[in-house]
């Protein structure tokens, strides 16, 4: 047997004395990292520090807050369901089929991500407004009005949040081994049965992650909502809108509303993360 002519590997080297695994973290990386972290955390800390804790329980019982919170949770959840209903099939189409213009479709899907939400709201008005392209027909044929209604809030949130879901699910589908789908087909499964029995369960964690992102984006939606649905307490005034309104009149109320929104979203995301996002 001849010796391998590379210097590594074959010749056993004596174990090096154990010391710190790596040398010091370079300051040029550490310093910006710490500043970045502070930049993200400080505003949240400021919110907590400036919270009027003494009057908190009294403010929490104000009816307007619970109404806005309830509406926010309700519309964000409905918007997420809407996004899943249409977004998962769209992601499947992008990941699993080949059709002319697929690249263009994928680019179009991401447009709401880069579009300023207010512009999105204007665009929604032009299409779904009472004199819009589809809106006028909806009103004439069914008497349905979308703008300035709770349904309009859901629509605005879904418009802004759906790309998050589609992109996350498409990524999960591309990462999943398509040969499982071939195996299902050889066992007699149609494409639909393969999708429901094999593909969906395999990418369920990816769909859950996408839904959580989508929900969080919908919960925080402001620009498209206020443009398309307006700011009517109890009907279209979600938490971000309430925060903005309170800011003009009562700073303390704005802080409390912000704190509640923060607490609720962090709690729900943390709970979902443990339940769904953790790998099996």
């Amino acid at each position: 047997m001849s010796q391998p002519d590379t210097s590594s590997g074959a010749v056993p080297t004596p174990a090096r004395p154990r010391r710190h695994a790596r040398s010091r973290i370079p300051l040029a990386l550490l310093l910006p990292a710490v500043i970045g972290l502070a930049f993200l955390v400080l505003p949240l800390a400021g919110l907590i520090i400036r919270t009027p804790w003494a009057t908190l329980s009294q403010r929490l019982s104000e009816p307007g807050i619970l109404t806005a919170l309830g509406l926010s949770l309700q519309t964000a959840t409905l918007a997420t369901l809407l996004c899943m209903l249409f977004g998962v099939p769209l992601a499947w189409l992008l990941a699993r089929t080949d059709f002319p213009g697929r690249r263009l479709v994928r680019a179009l899907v991401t447009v709401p991500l880069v579009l300023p939400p207010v512009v999105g709201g204007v665009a929604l008005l032009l299409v779904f407004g009472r004199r819009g392209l589809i809106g006028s027909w909806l009103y004439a044929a069914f008497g349905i009005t979308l703008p300035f209604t709770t349904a309009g809030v859901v629509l605005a949130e879904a418009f802004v949040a759906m790309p998050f879901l589609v992109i996350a699910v498409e990524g999960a589908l591309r990462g999943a081994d398509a040969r499982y789908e071939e195996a299902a087909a050889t066992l007699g499964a149609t494409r639909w049965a393969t999708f429901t029995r094999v593909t969906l369960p395999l990418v369920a964690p990816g769909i859950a992650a996408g839904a959580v992102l989508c929900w969080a984006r919908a919960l925080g939606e402001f620009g498209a909502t206020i443009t398309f649905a307006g700011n009517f307490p109890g009907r279209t005034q979600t938490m971000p809108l309430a925060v903005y309104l309170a800011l003009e009149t009562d700073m303390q109320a704005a802080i409390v509303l912000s704190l509640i929104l923060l607490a609720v979203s962090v709690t729900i995301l943390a709970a979902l993360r443990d339940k769904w996002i953790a790998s099996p």
Partner: protein
Amino acid sequence: MTTRSVSILDGHLRVGLAGFSLDIELAIAKGQVVALLGPNGAGKTTALRALAGLRPLSAGHIRLAGQTLDEPARNLFVPVEKRPVGVVFQDYLLFPHLSTLDNVAFGPRRRGTPKTQARQQAAAWLQRMGLADFAGRKPRQLSGGQAQRVALARALAVNPQLLLLDEPLAALDAKTRIDTRAELHRHLHDHDGATLIVTHDPLDAMMLADHLVVIEDGRIVQQGDAATITAQPRTDYIARLVGLNLFQGISTGTTVALPGGFALTTAQALTGHVFAAFPPAAVSLHTSRPDGSPRNTWQATITGIHRHGDNLRIQLDGPITAAADITPAAAAHLNLSPGQQIWAAVKATETRAYPA
């Protein structure tokens, strides 16, 4: 192809790919196990995918039990899920989110069997595979050998007319492989449809199949039963697989003239184009020119020495390129080293000739 019975599978598989084409004819009888043997890139997997319906043919046809599954000329194509074909994939592809039982019940369920009945059938299959205790387990909790049997049960549970196995033992370690091979042999011979095994392992092919089809570069180079193929290889690939030195030449009586000018004396008197073959163990090495019984002798240069089982395999160059197997004791006695000149000899009685 055989005298056993009429073929249930009649295929002429023609698939054109960039820089590669597959063109093989394949016939398998009911209950017959055929192995498609070939090196990597020979087109084995393409053939399997075409039969399963995962890749359409470019030309030719596939007929199974009287039904045409694919025939481009007549614009006929039966999609994967409608074919009476079962596939055992190389890495099994058991659905990770389903229990062992539900994996096996998946096929019957999709083909319309009611749930309770499908699960009963699946349980019966697991019982047959000796896996009754593992019904509730997830695939990741199974060993390689168990997963292989579940994959086989899953494919057989749909009662396929044609069972396809893609490198069924390649994912297993050496020890599991021997046990699983014996068991697989039993199950394949219980299967009354046609079976095709795709493999690059000659041992798997010979142990599991009744009939071997050897393909190289998308074409059939030889087919027959294991005994014929091991005794009379017709390409260098098969000769290497079965461990023979193989030469092609023109025979006059018992003398075969090889292209390089060398002549081999063989045991059979033949005329015309022939193959001549001898096993490496029949070659003896000598420091000086041997004489005695009628034999082939030539002066060779040692180009390589490797371990081969208990012996050493010596690669020889010279008028012919050949391999010789000798004992370590003999090698030590001869003091062999690469580059050394040596005399090689093979008895004529150990050199077989057969028509090309």
